């Protein structure tokens, strides 16, 4: 179901848990599926002994992609027109993430209706790991 500009209100929110207890296996799976083999995401020896982190951490793009799943579930398929993020904190194995969209504005553009959203994803401690924005086409 597509969203409708006539029923959306500024301040409306939608959220969903996009991953529970993130597994190292998923980091490896994402590395393979995306072709991003930066060792900080999969190589425990490199990341602890060379890079000096406590352990491997998720690709920012995985956090962005999982957050994008919340967005497409909310606005519908083929509706997203813009999506931008900053990665504000690392995402670690074992983390559970909840992604949230908040309606910032509803506007008209080139005869169509657009909703502008603030996007925020937090971990199980409530710490923001992804901060961003998105826009999507909505029905009148």
């Amino acid at each position, binding site marked *: 179901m597509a969203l409708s500009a006539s029923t959306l209100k500024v301040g409306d929110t939608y959220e969903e848990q996009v991953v529970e207890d993130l597994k190292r296996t998923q980091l490896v799976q994402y590395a393979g599926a995306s072709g991003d083999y930066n060792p900080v995401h999969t190589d425990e020896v490199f990341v602890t002994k060379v890079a000096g982190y406590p352990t491997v951490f998720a690709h920012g793009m995985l956090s962005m*992609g*999982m957050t994008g799943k919340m967005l497409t579930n909310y606005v519908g398929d083929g509706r997203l027109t813009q999506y931008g993020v900053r*990665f504000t904190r690392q995402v670690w194995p074992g983390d559970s993430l909840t992604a949230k969209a908040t309606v910032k504005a509803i506007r008209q553009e080139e005869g169509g209706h657009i909703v502008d959203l603030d996007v925020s994803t937090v971990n199980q401690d409530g710490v923001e790991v992804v901060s961003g924005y998105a826009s999507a086409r909505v029905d009148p």
Partner: protein
Amino acid sequence: MMLEIDPKAKQGVQLGPVTVTAEDIQSFAEAMGDLNPLYTDVEAARAAGYPDVIAPPMFCMRMRGGRMLPEVPLPSGFMSLNAGQEIEFHDEIIAGQTYTITSRVADVYEKTGRSGPMEIIVRESTFTDAEGRTIVTIRERQIVRSPEKKI
């Protein structure tokens, strides 16, 4: 440190044309835990009016490859991380279609973050379909810094 950018990197490099496969889309959707039938089931995609399965929005990042292009050589021992991106979607990426990606270094600047100075490389990638229509544009920032400082 100031990174040296090859003039060719500023002009841009071309990737493709590449033809997207349903298998690539499915493995990417599975890796993200997003099993939307439009990404995995051709019948569901056809019922929604598409010729084949469509890709999740972030599939464009897989298409541009694991390494950000154009490559900028980093001084020995330096580390880099993706700091974030902005994407504009003009149309869907669809299995069986062919796309060309043109990427260029748009900017390089220094910044002081939470844990000290860093350099930021900004790249822009434009995806066009076989008819030359712009489908997706990506603007992304890569943080570069020396290994004694954490990102």
